[in-house]
């Protein structure tokens, strides 16, 4: 079956001419979702993600899609999962407190293998925290927030263009791997308005879940195949099957037999693990001959880019690895550099979450330093530059 074509957003004319458009990060998420074929959004207001709900509330129904504001974030993700099972590309958006509420249903989507996109715009935490300030402190939660052994894909946007492109990618990954995908942003990325040149629709790849087309009696809803991703029938299409959060056999029925539960666990992990190359998104700048490497993500990556360029201008051999996918941690793309550089600096707006992963894969190959800021303010290019020169 052919994948769908990218859908026209609201930005239309202005970007097709190749001109820049002034756009907010949150706004770009909505445009990206529309381009990817999102037809369903359920959400709940929360700073700094509310603009996504507000934009969706009219842009979706304007195109025949559906928006609903639910009574809480738990309900929002429940609605998204239900809509996806009925065949829609569905999404929700929230911030820390709401993301915490969504964890149970997130696990459900992992076990039932329901494609959906969850945007988490990180703000100061924990708890009510600093609602209007920036942080990057939900990185570990995005990986492990829901209980049990589960695989997950987590992307991270750094610019308004990222917000657009990575939202499309998030939908594509969710459809291709039948998994929830979390798009992490931070408050700065969400609320920054900047000029952006969106890629022409013809250049966008849009992926759809593979639906069954055999006689319904032959359909085994959670059957394994080379990709590890079962074909997904939509409710009402003629493939009646059982979906549950209980660990289940290939027919979808609950099981406690260890041969069946083992097979299930192995498959849902394998479907992601065997596609690491495709899922990892890492951008490099001046990294090949770097002595000092900065590994950064989100809005901090923008400061890091400036700092690395300034450092080079001063004769320091600095380089940047910008992580646009955080989980599964892009170990295979980071490791080669760790062996060749003298030191690594991981600046982040938390008490050291990605730096832990870097240290883990580093295994003492080089020196890893951290630059942590947790006061609700951005790390500036100068702060990184000063550290680089000291290193």
């Amino acid at each position, binding site marked *: 079956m052919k994948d769908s074509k990218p859908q026209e957003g609201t930005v239309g004319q202005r970007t097709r001419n190749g001109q820049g458009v002034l756009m907010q990060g949150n706004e770009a998420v909505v445009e990206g979702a529309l381009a990817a074929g999102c037809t369903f959004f359920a959400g709940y207001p929360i700073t700094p993600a509310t603009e996504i709900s507000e934009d969706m509330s009219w842009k979706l129904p304007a195109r025949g899609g559906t928006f609903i504001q639910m009574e809480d974030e738990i309900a929002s993700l429940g609605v998204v999962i239900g809509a996806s*099972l009925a065949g829609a590309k569905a999404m929700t958006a929230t911030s820390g407190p709401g993301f915490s509420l969504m964890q149970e249903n997130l696990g459900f989507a992992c076990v039932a293998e329901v494609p959906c996109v969850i945007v988490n715009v990180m703000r100061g935490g924990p708890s009510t925290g600093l609602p209007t300030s920036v942080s990057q402190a939900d990185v570990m939660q995005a990986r492990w927030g829901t209980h049990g052994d589960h695989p997950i894909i987590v992307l991270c946007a750094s610019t308004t263009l990222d917000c657009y492109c990575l939202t499309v990618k998030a939908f594509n990954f969710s459809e291709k791997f039948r998994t929830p995908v979390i798009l992490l942003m931070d408050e700065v990325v969400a609320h920054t308005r900047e000029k952006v040149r969106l890629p022409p629709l013809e250049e966008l790849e849009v992926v759809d879940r593979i639906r069954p087309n055999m006689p319904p009696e032959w359909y085994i809803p959670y059957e394994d195949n080379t990709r590890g991703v079962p074909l997904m029938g939509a409710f009402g299409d003629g493939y009646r099957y059982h979906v549950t*959060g209980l660990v289940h056999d290939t027919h979808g029925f609950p099981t406690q037999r260890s041969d069946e539960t083992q097979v299930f666990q192995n498959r849902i992990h394998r479907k992601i693990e065997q596609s690491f190359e495709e899922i990892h998104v890492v951008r490099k700048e001046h990294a090949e001959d770097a002595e000092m490497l900065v590994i950064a993500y989100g809005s901090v990556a923008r400061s890091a880019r400036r700092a690395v360029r300034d450092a080079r201008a001063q004769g320091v051999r600095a380089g940047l690895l910008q992580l646009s996918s955080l989980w599964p941690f892009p170990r295979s793309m980071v490791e080669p550099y760790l062996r060749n550089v003298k030191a690594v600096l991981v600046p982040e707006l938390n008490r050291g979450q990605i730096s832990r992963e870097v240290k883990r894969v580093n295994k003492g190959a080089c020196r890893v330093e951290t630059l942590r800021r947790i006061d609700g303010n951005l790390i500036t290019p100068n702060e990184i530059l000063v550290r680089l020169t000291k290193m």
Partner: protein
Amino acid sequence: MAQVTALIHEYLRHDKKFPHVWCPGCGNGILLGSLIRAIDRTGYEKDEIVLVSGIGCAGRLPAYVDFNTLHTTHGRALTFATGVKLANPRLQVIVIMGDGDATAIGGNHFIHAARRNLDLTAIIVNNSTYGMTGGQYSPTTPYGARATTALFGNVEHAFSIAELAVTAGASLVARGTVYHATQLDDLVERAIRKRGFGVVEVISHCPTQYGKKNGMGGPVEMLRWQKDAAVRVEKAAEMSEEDLRGKFTIGILADRDLPIYVREYRKVREAARARLEEKENKPKIRLASGS
């Protein structure tokens, strides 16, 4: 009798491993029969039906029947059902929940689903306990009853699910029991046919947990209790408060025509389309090029 059995067999999943998880004497089996008979009477195709359930013994019902079935997280069945219905309004979505699932952890979603008046059917199996986990007290456990988390008698008071549904704005509210099985068939059928949020509270029994802890006897005695305590709504209207103490009404408690969500949402679509057209036709502000 054989005809009824044949009908049940037509709707059971034949690739599902039996025996089922319920205890001998459980009321859920009667409800399952009522549900099948009601759906059969409506004439909907199996592919058009989506059964969504919560967590608990009642939540295990959908796995056994040949429809599109969805067994969700505790208390959230109505939210998943909302998503299914909104994404494909042509589907008939029926939600099965227990009393704890629907009114404790799911209470908030219950109220809002009723308020929105989505075209869903909510069937709440009320056996006044959390049976699956061993018999803890729930929002519908009577004052003074015993439970594993109320060893000395429940000090909370129960509320009425049906009355809650009426106040929250459900279009149709009915209460039945698994003893009054024939009436239950009718009530479930009416709730499915009703356009808008239909609620059927099904008084049931859990002899294994609740019954045993409260000296209510076995399934037969508990069914007899349902028979004695139930009063038809029409009859209750003529009875005194004194006579109604310790009893509950069965039948249709409310049936009104309220605006349905999907129809209301069409207005949103029209207005949104108009707004989009307006935006696309507005003269654009040009940014300075070459920056």
